[in-house]
């Protein structure tokens, strides 16, 4: 018998209400779902449906007004060490080299950087396909390369959970696709629990094990879809009939919500 392990992340009757100048805004209502260990979960929804709010609550940057978030069975009360965040924009430090940007979380948290941290940064650079770019400044890199550095920075402290908030939405379509495939490669070698926020249907279906579709205002989980495509996935998976069916279905649901 296997011992039942708690899920990596659990949302339990979670609600979020923001007090604004014009009154109360209900951002999220009765959100319930689990994310399994090493699962890649994509959350898909229209803008303003509270997707980013969900991420901030997992990260412990925002407290829910009702219900709770659990990470590895423990209620989230504040930021944790085992969670990494990739933002929509790379937001690298413009004065620091690529390598210094990757080790920045360690420097910022502990005040010092060891040679081991630098070795690890080099490994990560190779992993995200930027070998030899360690001494460059962010300014000298393309948008896609900068976001690769952002991903390496989030992975540097080897978090169990990676939160990605529309990480590729600022990139052009081609770069975006390539970044998706590269991400698949990275997680194939080193599995992580990933919560990936996006409003790209095909990106969600290609990358995730499971896709949650959210409805907007207040944000609620509208539907849940397993992605019936085996791993490893690659460009050929885009032509997989099951994946195409799923993307069509997801698109319909999003459109329906938008119209309704």
């Amino acid at each position, binding site marked *: 018998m296997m011992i039942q392990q708690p899920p990596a992340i659990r949302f339990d009757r979670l609600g979020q209400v923001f007090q604004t100048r014009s009154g109360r805004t209900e951002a999220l209502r009765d959100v319930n779902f689990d994310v399994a260990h090493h699962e890649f979960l994509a959350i898909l929804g229209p803008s303003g449906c509270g997707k980013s709010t969900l991420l901030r609550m997992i990260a412990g940057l925002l407290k829910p007004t009702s219900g709770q978030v659990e990470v590895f069975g423990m209620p989230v009360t504040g930021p944790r060490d085992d969670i990494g965040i990739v933002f929509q924009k790379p937001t690298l430090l413009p004065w620091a080299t690529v390598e210094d940007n990757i080790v920045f979380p360690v420097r910022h948290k502990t005040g010092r950087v060891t040679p081991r941290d630098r070795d690890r940064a080099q490994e990560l650079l190779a992993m995200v396909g930027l070998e030899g770019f360690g001494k460059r400044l962010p300014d000298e*890199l393309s948008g896609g390369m900068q976001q690769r550095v952002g991903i390496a920075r989030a992975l540097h402290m080897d978090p169990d959970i990676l939160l990605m908030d529309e990480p590729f939405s600022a990139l052009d379509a081609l770069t975006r696709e390539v970044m998706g495939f590269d991400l698949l490669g990275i997680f194939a070698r080193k599995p992580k629990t990933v919560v990936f926020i996006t409003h790209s249907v095909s990106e969600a279906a290609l990358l995730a094990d499971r896709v949650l579709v959210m409805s907007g205002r207040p944000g609620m989980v509208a539907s849940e879809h397993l992605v019936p495509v085996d791993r490893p996935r690659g460009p050929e998976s885009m032509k997989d009939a099951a994946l195409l069916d799923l993307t069509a279905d997801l698109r319909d649901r999003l459109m329906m919500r938008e119209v309704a």
Partner: protein
Amino acid sequence: MKDAMTQSQTVPAKASRPAPVRPAPARPVAAASTAPMSQDSRPLLPRLVDLPGVTTGATLIGTVLLWEIAVRIFAIPSYLLPAPSAILNSFAAIGFSRWMLHVWSTLRVALLGFGLAIVVSVPLAMVMMRSALLSRTLYPLLVIVQSTPVVAIAPIIIVALGAGDLPRVVITTLITFFPLVVSTATGLSATPPELIELSRSLRAPAWREMTQIRLPYAVPYIFSALKISITLAVIGAVVAEFVASEAGVGYFIQFSTSMFKLPQAWAGLIVLAAMSLLLFQVVVQVQKRVFPWSLPKSEH
């Protein structure tokens, strides 16, 4: 299997060697001026005009020549406008050691006042950034201090603080620190919110958020203010010398005017302008050398 392929796809060819490629499209003017002359088939004059400093130099020399000619042709009396040659003569007559005495006196006060303004305003901006309450209470006070004409308070400060450099340094600081506080406070708040979230998610101490994220992000803002403040510092030092002093270029100008030695006063004026320009350039060069990333891309 994907790695080799994706890497070659994702590293855009144009960015794979950014250093040598970048300047050419980004700085057409610089590229033209550094190109070998043999490649430029244009006549000499247009090529000469493209060289750095040529237009500025020509404008300056032209203005001085016109000035000299105008003064001679129209026989303008020297108390109205002395000729450049007359100014140059009285400049030379003063002698190096006397100039140094006055220049050092003004420079010392300007730099001490400027330094004090930095030391006061950067921490003040940090405090105001951290606390909304302090910001609300201090800001009106700062505006009041800034709105009061420093020339008018200067005599009061001299009386209060007595002789010596101290009152002059304080006057200089008063005139310089306001743009510094405002710009630094703006810069400290201009940090991308994602980095602040990153800092919070790492549970880093607040002072490190300030020193490792906010303060470096404020550097471009601080330097914009420093460029304004350094020229204000010279003004501040001169104002203080006008009120009470026995040395300094401002004092020298006032003294020369009272003796009706106008070419000599003009010489002092030109020394002051040169000092301001030089100090401004020092600030520009410090930013260029120490914080090159803080410059707009076109100025790299």
